[in-house]
């Protein structure tokens, strides 16, 4: 056979014994349903014998198939022995079906690959805009929230402004004037507290006490008043000099 040489050389190219069998079957150039299994078995065994003669490495599964086919061949040639199960004719039919199946899938694969394929024969839209669902927040607020918020902002700012603009202090100058003016009326020893303005604000009291004390020290330095304190932390007395 012509094919034998190339087959021998290409032994590594087969995808297993079934692949080789199918190729040999195809070389019979008949419909696989009309295939002569006996002829196919002969071809396969001859191929393996040749390959061995050429001392080619033959994978074990090819030899297993060869052994099975040799067994099938003897079963097909010998008169039918009803004791032998399964029937060799049925095994031959099953082999034929297997080859048909593989052949059918091979052909189906080729036909699939030849279809109009996306990216080769037909093309999709190159730059689709896309369908987008945009989640848009629907902002919610009630009029009451708005008004209450403005009230909160306003209320937050009012006390801050009050403290800054109207901080109650008595300056040293104010204290000097006040003490000088009052000294004109008080001739005897007078307690420092008497010079302080009347107020309920404790921070103004502290401020005026400190300023008045400084004012008296200044006046004493100028020799215009006399100061007297009987003990530490005791009442501070003042009179015109």
């Amino acid at each position, binding site marked *: 056979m012509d094919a034998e040489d190339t087959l021998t050389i290409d032994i590594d190219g087969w995808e297993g014994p079934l692949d080789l069998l199918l190729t040999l079957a195809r070389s019979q150039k008949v419909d696989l349903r009309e295939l002569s299994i006996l002829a196919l078995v002969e071809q396969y065994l001859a191929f393996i014998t040749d390959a061995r003669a050429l001392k080619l490495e033959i994978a074990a599964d090819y030899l297993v198939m060869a052994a099975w086919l040799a067994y099938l061949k003897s079963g097909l040639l010998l008169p039918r022995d009803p004791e032998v199960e399964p029937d060799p004719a049925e095994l031959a039919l099953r082999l034929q079906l297997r080859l048909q199946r593989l052949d059918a899938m091979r052909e189906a694969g080729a036909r699939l690959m030849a279809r109009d394929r996306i990216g080769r024969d037909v093309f999709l839209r*190159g730059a689709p805009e896309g369908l987008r669902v945009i989640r848009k927040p629907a902002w919610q*607020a009630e009029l009451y929230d708005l008004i209450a918020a403005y009230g*909160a902002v306003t209320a937050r700012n009012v006390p801050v402004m009050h403290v800054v603009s109207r901080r109650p202090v008595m300056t040293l100058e104010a204290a000097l004037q006040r003490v000088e003016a009052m000294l004109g009326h008080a001739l005897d020893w007078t307690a420092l507290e008497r010079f302080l303005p009347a107020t309920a604000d404790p921070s103004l009291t502290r401020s005026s006490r400190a300023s008045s004390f400084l004012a008296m020290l200044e006046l004493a330095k100028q020799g215009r008043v006399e100061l007297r304190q009987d003990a530490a932390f005791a009442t501070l007395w003042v009179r015109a000099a």
Partner: protein
Amino acid sequence: MIGQDERAVEAVLFAAEQPLTLAEIGAAAGEGVDVAAALAALVQSYAPRGIHPVERGGRWHFETAPDLAHILRRTREEPRKLSRAGIETLAIIAYHEPVSRAEIEAIRGVQISKGTIDVLMEAGWVRPAGRREVPGRPLIYATTAGFLSHFGLGSRRDLPGIDDLRAAGLLDPVDDMLFNVEVESAGDEA
């Protein structure tokens, strides 16, 4: 009847990943294709359809018809409550408009984060209203007609005045408010 040139040009435009010049369409569609004539024919035959070939800056591409934009971009509304910073900022704009960002911050006593005014604009309640003619020319903001209708106000004069707020007790709980402000300003910075 649709000509072969027209079919080729339409397929080329459809499959292209970016808008194409006449020369690029011609190079793809092949020799002897009258691209300009094919495009003119396509523009006409697609005119009543939901998609059109259009030219933008010398390049052609397919676009969906402008009147169908709503079906391509479906918006789903999700109710969201305005943050406290948002509602306060909105209140300040409503009472003081037009007002700049710096002025809002001065009144609030707290910085406002970048997104706060954006949210109010997105809600359709606040709009930029020009610039204040002072150094830096800051943007100033005012409320919109959508603001009035959302809050059921005939005009801004319907907003209660400071005296009304005081009478309603909305200026009283100063200490509580101060406490809340501390908490909230920490949140704002985050």
